[in-house]
């Protein structure tokens, strides 16, 4: 208040001066100065009074409530940034008990994710999403989730259990949702990795957000390795760009991605070959080239204070050629339209929408030509009703139907329509901040994929849709030091679609069939515990009893599914900026793929150990990792041959080294 009082005094003084004396230049200057001073002070005084800020914290979003009703594992941006690995499949290795990485007969080099006990058909029973866009192919060709640069991943959400009502086909064992980064500021990240078997990986990621909400991100990477075996070279070259805008009522972006992959297939080994030299190849001709183009348009728009509309449009096409015993050429593409409304009515969270897919698949080689097309429609809705503040009831349902046309391997041309109706009921109870319980039942389904639709037995016109029900219960206990999760489940499937290797004169290579009933009963336990602020222990254990429940194989174990797998990880910051991580992974014994009769030799379980050391001095993160420290000999994928009654081996990598450097200029 000196600034308030003084002006009046000075004004009074100035007036007196005007009355009694003639103004000199000096006086005038003084008056101008005084007037200016008064004006500035007066201006300052007219500044509005500031009320202490009002803060509004969000309540739970629909997404958080959806997560609370199932067992969910997150891999955060921090974990990704500090990880010594360079691609997603290596990152997921740390969650191996939940998301088992396996292979299938379509491409033994491409990793496939299995949740809740699936073997050779895991690719069609786990749904992988990238920002809500399904990363699935019309055929059984495994989706290339390594096409997403780690630098671009904000987090990975692994939802275990059926999600058929909310996410639709293929969400049978679970859903892996990869959330990419949304640039809010300048991001620059460079990664280089060099390792055994001529592994080299280089990536560059840049992104930024400008005034008026305009943003972009751009990345490219090249990943090359000879793998462990002869004639097993793999190259992935990828470039992706996204441009968009955050506007007052929403977000819109366009995503364009193109990648080229090539794989050499060394062929399976006999047991004798595997024991003599697991690195040898038996086939030096088979090779696969894939060119993939992806276009995605996303819009999230606020309709009013209670409702938003999310719309996803996408197109992806894959052109493949190469040589797999015969020269071949393949082409498959898929379009999708997926609008959905998200909102609330009287505190009840509601989501409903439509999913439309249109796909085509065509394969020609010197022996045969097959094709399939499908048009799938889905209508779905889900609501989460708070019965009281700590108890939520979830109800949902989905109706799906698909028109199919297929030119089968048997030269039959078939047209049919598949339908499925699934529902969900669940309760989630969260009595306090630490505890959370859930109990749910959810339906699941999947329609035959193009490869399956064309590769059916001659006597069978079409395959039936696979349907099922999952019952799940679990609890999550979270404290400042630890997070523990326990879940038990029973997954019953009807008409499970899988490959039957039984060879007949009309099907000399076997065929895809519907099995009668299968049942998987399992328990999953996970624990992440901060022993000290610098020592983190994380463990996961998964047990599943996966069996045929009826039909000719009733009581048999489902092949390629280990009953037990688990892992233990220890991360320790032993001095400032230095961290080490030890991982031990156990994969239990299991029958070889396609040994539905359980007559072949059971494949033994194996342990894999890895150790990594990291130096982190922002913005640089350098790590050195030794994978399979004890050079364990093991097979990632075994295939039973019913004619020779032998098992083929596809060996996993022996001891390998990886040196990674990441430069992060966020």
């Amino acid at each position: 208040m000196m600034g308030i009082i003084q002006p009046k005094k000075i004004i009074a003084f100035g007036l007196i001066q005007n009355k009694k004396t003639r103004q000199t230049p000096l006086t005038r200057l003084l008056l101008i100065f005084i007037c200016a001073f008064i004006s500035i002070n007066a201006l300052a005084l007219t500044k509005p009074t500031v009320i202490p800020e009002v803060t509004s914290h969000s309540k739970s979003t629909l997404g958080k409530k959806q997560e609370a009703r199932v067992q969910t594992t997150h891999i955060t941006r921090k974990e990704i940034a500090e990880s010594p690995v360079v691609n997603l499949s290596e990152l997921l290795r740390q969650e191996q008990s939940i998301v088992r990485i396996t292979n299938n007969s379509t491409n033994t080099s491409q990793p496939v994710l299995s949740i809740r006990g699936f073997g050779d058909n895991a690719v069609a029973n786990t749904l992988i999403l990238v920002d809500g866009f399904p990363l699935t192919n019309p055929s059984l060709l495994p989706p290339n989730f390594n096409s997403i640069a780690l630098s671009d991943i904000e987090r990975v959400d692994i939802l275990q259990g059926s999600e058929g009502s909310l996410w639709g086909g293929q969400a049978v064992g679970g859903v892996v949702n990869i959330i990419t980064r949304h640039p809010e500021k300048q991001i620059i990240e460079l990664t280089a990795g060099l390792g055994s078997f001529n592994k080299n990986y280089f990536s560059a990621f840049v992104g930024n957000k400008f005034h008026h909400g305009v943003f972009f991100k751009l990345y490219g990477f090249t990943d090359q390795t000879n793998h462990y075996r002869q004639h097993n070279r793999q190259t992935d070259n990828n470039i992706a760009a996204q441009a968009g805008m955050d506007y007052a009522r929403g977000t819109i972006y366009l995503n364009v991605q193109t990648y080229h992959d090539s794989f050499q297939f060394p062929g399976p080994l006999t047991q004798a070959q595997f024991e003599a030299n697991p690195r040898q190849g038996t086939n030096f001709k088979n090779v696969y080239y894939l060119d993939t183009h992806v276009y995605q348009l996303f819009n999230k728009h606020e309709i009013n204070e209670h409702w938003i509309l999310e719309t996803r449009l996408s197109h992806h096409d894959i052109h493949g050629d190469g040589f797999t015993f015969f020269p071949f050429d393949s082409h498959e593409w898929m379009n999708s339209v997926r609008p959905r409304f998200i909102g609330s009515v009287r505190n009840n969270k509601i989501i409903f929408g439509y999913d439309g897919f249109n796909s085509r698949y065509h394969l020609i080689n010197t022996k045969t030509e097959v094709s399939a097309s499908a048009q799938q429609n889905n209508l779905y809705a889900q609501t989460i009703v708070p019965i009281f503040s700590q108890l939520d009831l979830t109800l949902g349902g989905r109706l799906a139907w698909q028109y199919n046309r297929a030119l089968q391997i048997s030269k039959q041309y078939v047209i049919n329509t598949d339908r499925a109706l699934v529902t969900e009921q669940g309760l989630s109870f969260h009595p306090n901040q630490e505890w959370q319980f859930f109990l749910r039942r959810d339906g699941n389904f999947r329609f035959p994929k193009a490869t399956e639709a064309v590769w059916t037995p001659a006597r069978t016109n079409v395959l039936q849709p696979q349907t099922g029900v999952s019952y799940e219960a679990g609890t999550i206990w979270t404290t400042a030091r630890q997070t523990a999760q326990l879940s038990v489940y029973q997954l019953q499937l009807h008409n499970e679609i899988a490959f039957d290797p039984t060879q007949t004169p009309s099907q000399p290579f076997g065929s895809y069939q519907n099995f009668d009933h299968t049942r998987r009963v399992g328990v999953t336990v996970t624990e992440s515990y901060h022993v000290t602020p610098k020592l983190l222990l994380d463990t996961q254990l998964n047990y599943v009893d996966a069996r045929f429940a009826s039909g000719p194989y009733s009581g048999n174990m489902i092949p390629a599914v280990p009953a037990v797998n688990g892992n233990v990880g220890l991360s320790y910051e032993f001095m400032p900026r230095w961290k080490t991580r030890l991982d031990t992974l156990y994969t239990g014994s299991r029958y070889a793929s396609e040994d539905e009769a359980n007559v072949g030799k059971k494949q033994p379980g194996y342990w894999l150990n890895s150790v990594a050391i990291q130096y982190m001095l922002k913005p640089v993160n350098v790590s050195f990792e030794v994978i399979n420290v004890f050079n364990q000999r093991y097979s990632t994928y075994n295939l039973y041959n019913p004619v020779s009654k032998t098992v083929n081996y596809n060996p996993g990598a022996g001891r390998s080294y990886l040196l990674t450097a990441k430069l992060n200029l966020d």
Partner: protein
Amino acid sequence: MLDFSSPAIVPGNEQVPVIQSYFFNEFVAKPQQTSETKKINNKEIAKQVKQKTAVAMTVTKQVSQPPSAKSSSHGEQIDALLALLHDAIQQHQHYPESALEMERQGRVTVSFTLFTDGLIRDLRIVKSSGTASLDSAALAAVNAAVPFTKINKYLENSREFTLDVVFELA
């Protein structure tokens, strides 16, 4: 607006306290009010607000003289008024569902002119959050708090206020 006729700026009242927020006392609080006339609950709220928020006040000039008992009470009264306004608006704030689902957060600066009868005029966005629903929710929170009650004991003339409403995702 500044009212030079207000007793608050009569010479002699320049014994102002060190605490910045007491500045406003000189313009909106009645100088004749004494500490005996204060409501205890408002005093407590003012204390809480002072503790919770480091408010960026418009004046940083400090005066070397120690505060007198009288002016100190004025300062507490203005803090009580700000606390009253803050709490009234806080009670009516809510996070729009649409912004929640869009994972939008941000800070909205609003301003308004408050009259002694508790009504307001010229409510407007000074700085947008960039999200329409958050801006609307900030305006709605202020509107819902109108009329502000029990303010005539602190406010002699109309005055302009600004307020930041912060929306944070949990």
